[in-house]
């Protein structure tokens, strides 16, 4: 599990999620963070354009992990979201808190005055 405490600003991108080919020497610690942001944006695009048409997840970088929160229609949808996230964010710790939609009738109405 990612802790988010081991990448001081001077560590550079070597072991971060954006530390692969293309990492610019001496560019400082901003690059891993920026790379993660772009990858989150790409994940959001992929979720929206794919079979799920999923635009309702909140996906954010927290420390050196990515958090996904929201509500999925079915357990299968939730699994698909996590599978796509793993494909789009290899090497990144993904923490998910995705609830399942409740499809029961309400207990009571709200009476408006």
């Amino acid at each position, binding site marked *: 599990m990612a802790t988010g405490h081991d990448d001081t600003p001077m560590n550079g991108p070597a072991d971060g999620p954006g530390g692969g080919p293309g990492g610019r020497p001496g560019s400082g610690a901003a690059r891993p963070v920026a790379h993660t942001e772009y990858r989150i944006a790409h994940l959001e695009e992929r979720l929206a354009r794919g079979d799920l048409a999923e635009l309702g997840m909140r996906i954010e970088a927290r420390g050196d992990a990515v958090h996904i929160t929201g509500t999925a*229609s079915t357990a299968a949808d939730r699994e698909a979201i996590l599978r796509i996230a793993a494909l789009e964010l290899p090497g990144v710790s993904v923490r998910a808190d995705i609830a399942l939609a409740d*499809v029961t009738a309400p207990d009571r109405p709200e009476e408006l005055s």
Partner: protein
Amino acid sequence: MIRVAAVGDIHLGPDSRGLLRPAFDTLPDHADLLLLAGDLTRHGTPEEARVVADEVAGLQVPVVAVLGNHDHHAERPGDVTAVLRDAGVTVLEGEGTVVEVDGVRVGVAGTKGFGGGFAGRSGSEFGEPEMKAFVRHTRGLADGLRRALDELAEGGCAVRIALTHFSPVPDTLVGEPLEIYPFLGSYLLAEAMDDSGADLAVHGHAHLGTEHGITSGGVRVRNVAQPVIRRAFAVYGLPVDGSRASAAHPS
């Protein structure tokens, strides 16, 4: 008391067939009509619309719907509308419909609505053609909503409800990232509701938002996106006194 059931953003596809029907079958115990606040499908295909149609076909309460942005994705909103209408759903865009409940005329005016942002923080019809078209689209839909609400008032409706997919107010977006508010709704929708008057405004679209809000003119707003209400539908009881519906147009 008019009992209004509402839900939006059910995003049905072939793999979710039958998901909501057990709860919908209990609707006569809970409500006098069901409103569907858009994003009924995932991609807006006729095949997905048929899943929605099967989910509501033959219900013992009238069903009134607007489409959402997902229902436009395949660029076949006419086909989606036709499939829903074949199943008995009244699909609104810039028009109204009247449901009789125990002799009371309940009017529902509907539009998908669109984005642009909220008063003081909104886009303008200025600059590139794309930007002008964006805001003009919202303005045109809001004007259609205003006309529909006016016609329902002229038609003697004791209760009027504005049904949209996009939000008329920022209140019900709380929980969404502030940066995307302009993509979630427009004050032009609220302005139309306040100009004409309404007893309740129902919308969806903002999955991470909040259920309760109110327009500047005092129209109660409810975000019924299914992830927000956390049920198959929400039910709102509206008193039948017509006070709000006739309170518009301060001279």
